[in-house]
């Protein structure tokens, strides 16, 4: 009996180890610093309560720093907090698209591998508007609803009756507002939005001694769950990137007025992507963005990150999962009591494709998702046995497929990959096989969002046959009664 129990225990340990090994090993990640002009936002939504944390990586003289954000309500002093840059770094590192690798086993004999976890840190870049402060209000229909000094920032909450007055007020007070901002300010004023206006208090900053400007976090109650991006487009030249880290109690956050599209994932790519994964992902994103019409929001990550939740939090982990303290600093104030679902969205927006601000909704959708790209290391040793020979032939086809995937995903020229595909062919004894042509077949104008059309074809066929059959059947039944 004892031996049985021990045997069972051993078996379960072995099974677990295999299951873990199945995750693959983490190789590299694509973080926000790969994209220039990228702002980062943390959004927390609980019922009608929204918390927005805005990252500040302002490069330049801090006395020139200023920010104007439309908000739905007048914020109270304890609705505004200073957060910490490290939260963004932790979230970015944890949720970025990842490169993983697997090791093939030689079918002629078997290896054992050890697990290895590693993660690294990343930096991030954010865009802010420049300006400086000078004067006081001059009866332009602008009312200072509230005035706070928090940390290194001086904060005003303004309400306005018309855009020209607001623009004049801002200009007189040293905020450099772009000429086209008028027409954008107007709709916000008439929608009864207030303006959250920030500048740096140089004395406080000096006293505090922080080198960089820290992120500002604001919370408010409003049925509106949106990000005002139109104001930032007024002076933009070219598309801007934004990464949104969103937290809810129930499930994924998605955009309601633009498509939310999954970034292509779980693709096998050639081994040398290990050395330039950053460029690979930047080009992949660019191609997907073009292919989807430049007017959608991309899903890069979605996972249940509840600290006490026992499930697997990543496969594999790029960075450590966010701790309760990280979540707290991000504005998730229920991390100890309930579910925390994390969504990472990446949007590249420009005025011509994004006429409206981004509106979001919380869905009950708890399906996990990650942007994941796979390297497969070939087996070592000799391949004399029959299975080994078959393995080499399969490897050749598999690599051809990897190269085709690479071309589809990034649009790169893959002609130099010929040697990679046939690297192991000299070990194959079957001369007939070696004569085959292994030039990659690159489908024209193919869809970087779909690994294959097999499922689509099967569904289409079944669907058409089913509906057609039903049609014919019903047309033959004589009509006797009314529906």
């Amino acid at each position, binding site marked *: 009996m004892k031996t049985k129990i021990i045997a069972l225990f051993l078996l379960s340990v072995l099974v677990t180890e295999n299951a873990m090994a199945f995750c693959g090993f983490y190789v590299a990640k694509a973080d926000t610093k790969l994209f220039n002009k990228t702002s980062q936002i943390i959004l927390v939504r609980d019922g009608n309560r929204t918390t927005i944390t805005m990252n500040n990586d302002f490069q330049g003289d801090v006395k020139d720093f200023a920010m104007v954000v439309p908000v739905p309500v007048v914020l109270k002093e304890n609705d505004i907090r200073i957060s910490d840059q490290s939260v963004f770094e932790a979230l970015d590192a944890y949720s970025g698209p990842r490169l993983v690798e697997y090791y093939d086993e030689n079918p002629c004999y078997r290896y054992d591998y050890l697990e290895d976890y590693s993660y690294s840190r990343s930096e991030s870049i954010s865009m802010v508007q420049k300006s400086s402060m000078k004067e006081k209000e001059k009866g332009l229909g602008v009312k200072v609803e509230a005035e706070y000094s928090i940390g290194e920032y001086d904060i005003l909450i303004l309400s306005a009756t018309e855009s020209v007055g607001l623009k004049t007020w801002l200009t007189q007070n040293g905020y450099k507002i772009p000429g086209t901002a008028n*027409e954008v300010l*107007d*709709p916000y004023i*008439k*929608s009864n939005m207030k303006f959250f206006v920030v500048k740096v208090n140089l004395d406080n900053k000096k006293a505090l001694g922080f080198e960089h400007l820290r992120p500002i976090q604001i919370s408010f109650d409003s*049925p*509106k*769950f949106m990000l005002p991006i139109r104001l930032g487009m007024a002076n933009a030249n070219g598309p801007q990137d934004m990464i949104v880290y969103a937290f809810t109690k*129930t*499930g994924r956050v*998605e*955009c*309601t*007025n*633009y*498509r*939310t*599209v*999954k970034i292509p994932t779980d693709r096998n790519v050639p081994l040398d992507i290990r050395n330039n994964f950053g460029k690979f992902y930047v080009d992949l994103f660019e191609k997907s963005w073009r292919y*989807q*019409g430049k*007017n*959608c929001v991309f899903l890069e990550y979605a996972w249940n990150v509840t600290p006490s939740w026992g499930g697997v939090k990543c496969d594999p982990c790029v960075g450590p999962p966010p701790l309760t303290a990280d979540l707290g600093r991000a504005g998730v104030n229920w991390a100890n009591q309930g579910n925390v679902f994390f969504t990472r969205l990446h949007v590249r927006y420009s005025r011509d494709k994004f*006429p*409206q601000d981004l*509106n979001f*909704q919380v*869905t*009950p*959708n*708890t*399906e996990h998702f990650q942007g994941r790209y796979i390297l497969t290391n070939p087996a070592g040793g000799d391949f004399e046995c029959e299975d080994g020979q078959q393995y080499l032939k399969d490897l050749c086809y598999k690599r051809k497929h990897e190269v085709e995937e690479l071309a589809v995903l990034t649009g790169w020229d893959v002609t130099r990959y010929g040697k990679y595909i046939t690297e192991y062919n000299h070990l194959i004894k079957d001369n007939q096989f070696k004569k085959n042509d292994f030039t990659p077949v690159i489908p024209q104008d193919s*869809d970087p*969002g*779909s690994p294959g059309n097999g*499922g*689509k074809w099967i*569904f*289409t066929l*079944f*669907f*058409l046959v089913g*509906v057609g059959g*039903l*049609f014919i059947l*019903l047309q033959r*039944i004589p*009509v*006797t*009664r*009314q*529906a």
Partner: protein
Amino acid sequence: MKSSIHLLTALRSLFRDARNFQIVFLSSFLLYGIWYLDWDHDIVRFAIIISTALMVQLVGVMLSPAPMHSLKSALITGLGMSLLFQANSYITLVMGVGLAIAGKFLIRSNGKHIFNPANFGIVVTILLTGDAWISPGQWGSSALLVFFIGAAGLMVILKAGRVDTSFAFLATLFLLEYVRTIVYLGWDFDFLLLKFSNGSLLLFSFFMITDPVTTPNHLVARIVWASLIAVVTFSLSNFMQVHTAPLWALFFISPLTVGFDRLLKSEKFQWIKA
């Protein structure tokens, strides 16, 4: 020339039953989504929704005097729900579709079912389970042309069957939105265009509120009824931030059909004139 006349006659006779036309169009939208909008991950969901709708309807046909050709209506409901309705679990999906079809047989007045089946199934499931949702953004704005082709086809073939409902709804909503977003708030015109090129809204306008069984019988009543839905939609989406407003508006206004039919008497709609 001759063959084209033959084709036209064949089409006319096929689309004499408006449901055949709806099935062709909704099927095209579904296949469009699968092939061009990356909905291929959802194939299992579509299969479950459509087969559940047909099976529940078949049970209904056996237990009630409903005719066999009402399976077409169930197919339309199934297709419509495939294009809108999402849930975490298959059980929720089956429940939603079951409710939609069962509601037709159980909640009736004056020989007509009160709620639009797909609408009823979706709204009640969202309210009861908290496990289902609608993604109004899933279409993007590229579906605009497809829908207008659909609407044009609808008018030509049905000789404006109940398209009056669609147009009353869209025209009222457009007017209200235009006055608010362009005239009052001062957004650019493409702001409004994005709202009206939303696939979910157009699907709702041409294929959900046109359901002849759940709309009032009298023309005037229909136009008032559709405009009322537009007003509620406008208010919900602009002042309460409900992004799926049209579905809720239809759900709450649907029961008024009974009152409209009593006030303004007109001939009841029949799918196929016997």
